[in-house]
């Protein structure tokens, strides 16, 4: 079995290496990527989509397929970590990791003697200290959270004109949630933003993105070909419809990135039992 695996890896590797030879030279001005596509993007993006930031336009319109599947990758990563780590009854993985840790520690103690023990005591004391609510940190987080969330919404909504978009804004939103989880405790945060809700939001984000594409299909255009959506949006022409659809799609990306990063943090920091975070 190992030999077959090795052979298939070698075969694929050789195929890939052969394919590399067919690439255009580095920086070749006559390569297909440089000869007409880039110029088209640089010159015509604003006319065609009414979006000044051509990175956003390429990301969310011309290459929307790619972005949709990237969003799905984030979603799948979150689901995979959820599936591997999450233990519903509290016995499976969290218990196992802790048992393994304890066993490893006792072996080391036999070998190393006292030094390891002292270190563990210090870490335990630090954990006890960290578990206490800290007034200063909590007040700061209270002050900053609205700002952080407002800025994240700004980043999502202003991606057409400045650097930003769904991924970046979603990450900022998730960072805000993780900040709350670190300062107020994971359990309190999960009472506010439950696991179920964040799973639903992650689903909703991918659904918004793919649903926009399906809507285009239903109106008679290609998948994610936004210009037909002018029939649905009030008071827009076909160019502005592309611009608005990018915003819709970015909002979907924001939902997915935020909820999945938050879920990944919650599972990783609590060994999957969602009881005690960092």
């Amino acid at each position, binding site marked *: 079995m190992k030999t077959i695996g090795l052979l298939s890896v070698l075969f694929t590797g050789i195929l890939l290496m052969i394919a590399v030879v067919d690439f255009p030279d580095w920086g070749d001005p006559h390569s297909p990527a440089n000869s007409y596509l880039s110029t088209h993007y640089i010159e015509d993006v604003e006319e065609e989509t009414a979006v000044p930031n051509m990175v956003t336009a390429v990301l969310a319109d011309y290459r929307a397929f790619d972005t949709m599947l990237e969003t799905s990758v984030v979603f799948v990563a979150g689901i995979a970590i959820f599936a591997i780590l999450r233990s519903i009854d509290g016995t499976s993985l969290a218990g196992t990791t802790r048992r393994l840790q304890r066993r490893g520690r006792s072996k080391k103690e036999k070998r190393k003697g006292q030094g390891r023990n002292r270190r563990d005591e*210090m870490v335990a*004391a630090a954990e006890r*200290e960290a578990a206490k609510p800290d007034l200063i940190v909590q007040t*700061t987080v209270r002050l900053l959270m609205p700002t952080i969330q407002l800025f994240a919404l700004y980043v999502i909504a202003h991606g057409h004109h400045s650097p930003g978009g769904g991924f970046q804004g979603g990450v900022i939103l998730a960072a805000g949630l993780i900040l709350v989880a670190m300062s107020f405790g994971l359990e309190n945060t999960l009472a506010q933003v439950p696991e179920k809700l964040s799973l639903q939001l992650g689903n909703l984000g991918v659904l918004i993105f793919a649903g926009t594409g399906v809507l285009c299909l239903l109106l008679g255009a290609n998948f994610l070909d936004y210009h037909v959506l002018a029939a649905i949006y009030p008071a827009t022409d076909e160019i502005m419809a592309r611009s608005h659809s990018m915003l819709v799609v970015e909002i979907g990306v924001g939902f997915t990135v935020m909820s999945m990063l938050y879920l990944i943090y919650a599972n990783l920091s609590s060994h999957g039992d969602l009881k005690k975070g960092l």
Partner: protein
Amino acid sequence: MTEGMGIGPIEIVSMALIGSGVIFFAGAVAGILRFPDYYTRIHAAGKGDTLSTLLIALGFAVYNLGDLSFHNILTSIKILMICVFIFITGPTTTHVLMEAGYALGFKHWKKDGDQEEEEP
């Protein structure tokens, strides 16, 4: 300075602010390198970071007002908001680091030198 750009009062003020910010940064770096234990080093880093970032950002805000227009005033206000943000978050970070160090049991530095070996 090149010939085309005169040095007005606004440039002088912003240069003074940015220059003092850089000096405080240098002080913070010296503190991090030279101070004897965890707490004093964090003290130097926190103080220097907050104050010098504040001064440099203020210098930028003042320099930006050299050519007065609505757009530039708006940018300066945004820079001031960054200042407020740093003013709140910097000391909090220092506080959290200090507390974590105290909980981990790092020993204070004493002048007579019989301090235990407990460096991070």
